[in-house]
């Protein structure tokens, strides 16, 4: 118990003094996670619109695969991305392994199915005739898609929150494709794993608290938008 309190006390010291290394890891984590979420949003929303609004043979199979992908284990993603980026892998020529780009790539692979799956569900909940109603009000096709997204904005924000939550908390893929290199690819989760392994509980607790605070802050902002938008 004393270990815990001591750890928490030291953690607050690190935070109070704005330890440069902790601060660096935090900002890097935020940057990588937000970029990966943004990329997943673009890909996931596009795929979600396509799956929700078009009919093609095998559509149900694709939706099932996407839904399975929502629970994709990060270590599996890490393994495959590592193999793709490996020196003689298909994308080896880009020399991305153990760079921030590799982490963004792996996290995008993790979050895209999550955002796609929730987007499909959100868009399918809209009344089927709404599309026709929008077109009959004089909308072009892109305007129609935009208005549908706007109508589904509340559940779509939930998709963004789930995607963000999925990538900021994962450790396996970031560790495997990033390598936890100090000052280059070290994120909050990989650093926490490492510090815990070394017995530096104070640092690990500090990192964990930051991770929780970040997750809370981002979700609080999105929840605020979502609830403010909800008509009373």
């Amino acid at each position, binding site marked *: 118990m004393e270990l815990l309190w001591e750890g928490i006390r030291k953690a607050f010291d690190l935070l109070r003094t704005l330890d440069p290394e902790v601060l660096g890891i935090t900002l890097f984590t935020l940057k990588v996670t937000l970029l990966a979420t943004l990329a997943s949003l673009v890909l996931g929303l596009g795929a979600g619109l396509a799956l929700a609004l078009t009919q093609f043979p095998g559509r149900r199979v694709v939706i099932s695969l996407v839904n399975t992908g929502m629970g994709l284990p990060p270590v599996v993603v890490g393994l495959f991305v590592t193999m793709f980026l490996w020196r003689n892998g298909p994308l080896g020529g880009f020399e991305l392994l153990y760079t921030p780009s590799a982490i963004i790539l792996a996290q995008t692979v993790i979050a895209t199915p999550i955002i796609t799956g929730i987007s499909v569900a959100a868009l399918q909940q809209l009344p089927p*005739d709404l599309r*026709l*109603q929008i*077109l*009959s*009000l004089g909308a*072009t096709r892109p305007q129609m898609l935009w208005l549908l997204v706007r109508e589904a904005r509340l559940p779509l924000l939930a998709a963004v929150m789930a995607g963000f939550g999925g990538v900021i908390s994962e450790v396996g893929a970031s560790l495997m494709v990033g390598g936890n290199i100090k000052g280059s690819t070290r994120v909050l989760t990989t650093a926490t794993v490492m510090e815990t392994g070394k017995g530096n509980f104070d640092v690990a607790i500090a990192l964990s608290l930051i991770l929780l605070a970040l997750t809370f802050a981002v979700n609080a902002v999105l929840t605020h938008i979502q609830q403010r938008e909800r008509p*009373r």
Partner: protein
Amino acid sequence: MTALLRAEDLLVRRGDATVLDVPGLELEEGGVLALIGPNGSGKSTLLKTLASLMAPARGTLLFRGEALRPEAYRRLVTMVFQAPLLFDATVRANLESGLKLHGVPAAERGTRVAAAARRLGVESLLDRSARNLSGGEAQRTALARAFVLRPEILFLDEPFSALDPPTREALLDDLAGVLRETRTATVIATHDQMEALRLADRIAVLREGRIVQYGPATEVINRPADAFVAEFVGMEAVLSGRVEGAGQGEFRVAAGGGFVVAAGEAVPGEEVRIGIRPENVTLSTQAEARSSARNSFSGTVTRIVPRGPFFKVELDCGFFLAAYVTPVSLEELGLAEGSRVVARFKATAVHLLRR
């Protein structure tokens, strides 16, 4: 004269099944066409095809004689569905939505929205969220959102079927008024013949994707082409005419060289449509039989059709009239096609269908 909208050779398939097969249909400037038929008869499909919201397997749509691109055509027309399908925003934003898509400047949007809202009675709701509207308010908002666009053609897909009767009556009255004022060409799908009679000049009856009868509203109602149409629409005799005199809770409509006296309020000079149910018409062979009925017309029997436990006797009194008669009465009166009879009905049996 070129029709406002002309559909030629429309064919819609779903899988291998033909769901709509319409060789030709026309809508005139200012005309109101009702598509009536049971559920699954293809009304909605025809409506969506005419509104260019659904691509037919075959066929053409000509707007004032021109085949337009669907996007261009859809900017000239609009549609109101059975569900209001409002955007999750205020009533005002909903009314503005189409105008924004049409690129109407903000200042003009304001005045047009205010006018449409006033006309459909949603003025006081403009700043409310569309989520908190009653069914009737929501459908009024949907209609206002359509009328504010000043469409060349308005398509209505059973817009009242989800509403309770009093709400629906009030909204029907308002819609009839707006259509009369704006002379907006309209196609309305409905399974309610009263709705069709209140609004439409012409009726097309659909069955299994085909038009089984098409013509002026009174003709379709009075002279159903077959048993199917009769079952669907042939409930009563309907006639159109001008109000010649009114007062003391009654009005008179010129018909067949005489007048039909009806209970109710109307303004002299008004063109109206009135309905007389066959069960309210009694027949006799003597002209001077005593009766309290205000209306008495002599006529010729044109057709006798069995209708359940009764016979429906159709008459030509200078206008169309029908009466239900029991088999016993039919025999006693000795009725046959060509017989001369006197038909009587009370002023209260006449109802005003449309102003």
